[in-house]
């Protein structure tokens, strides 16, 4: 209990990822769905750093930088899409976004 190991960090990462998944599946506000995705990306980053430091591989640390860059790009484009959809529908409810339904 007093010694913090790899397992503690990985368990925390799994818990945060699950909270993110639950957020994506249960919320209808598109912005909160986006924030839940950011929580999932952060949980993955935590697992990357944990493994990189424990086995001694710099690749994991560099990958976190790429994940953060992709998350920034994703947030910019995603929020622009939300703004554009809000102009058309006057709402950010994901259930109203049915334009691409087959």
């Amino acid at each position, binding site marked *: 209990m*007093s*010694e*913090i*190991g*790899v*397992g*503690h*960090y*990985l*368990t*925390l990462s*799994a*818990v*945060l990822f*699950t*909270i993110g998944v*639950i*957020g994506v*599946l*249960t*919320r*209808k*506000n598109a*912005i*909160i769905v986006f*924030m*839940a995705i*950011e*929580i999932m990306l*952060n949980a993955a*980053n935590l697992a990357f*750093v*944990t493994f*990189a*430091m424990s*086995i*001694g*591989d*710099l*690749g994991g*640390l*560099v990958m*976190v*930088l*790429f994940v*953060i*860059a*992709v*998350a*920034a*790009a*994703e*947030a*910019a*484009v995603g*929020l*622009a*899409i939300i*703004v*554009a959809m809000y102009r058309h529908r006057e709402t950010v409810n994901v259930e109203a976004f049915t334009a691409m339904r087959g």
Partner: protein
Amino acid sequence: MTGVAIAFWVLAVVAVLCSLLVVTSRNPVASVLYLVVTFFCLAGLFVTLHSHFLAAIQVIVYAGAIMVLFLFVVMLLNLGTPQWFDVATTPLTAVALVLGVGFVAALAAAGLGDFEPSVVGPAAGVPPDVLGSTEAIATALYSAYYLPFLVTALLLLVAMVGAVVLARRER
């Protein structure tokens, strides 16, 4: 308990509580602020893992840039007050909750808490303070990973142009 252990438990509990508040809060502005706290906790956890450079990047890019973007959109669209009951009330929601909690329980039962990796990396003997330093990451980024680094720059340019085109008002 050592200092690192105390820091881990405090940061872990605050991170889990705040991320739960992010996905359960009805007010999007409150969600954004709880998310900032979660990101600061993860930066602190990176510090406990001796990865100081990534902790700084986490605070600057996530808690700084990305969160300001979120807050901007929430304010711009005037979503400060909850306008509808936005929790999905389909049977799938209950299934999601049960499967999510079951996933964590299954991982805990499988012994994730005592997991120790058996793989040995290329820099296995290096002390963690040297491995997580800015110098080590920069050396890797500008030598072995220089092509992905350049592609990331291109991706950010494309995302910037895409965001401007998408959010522009059509005439």
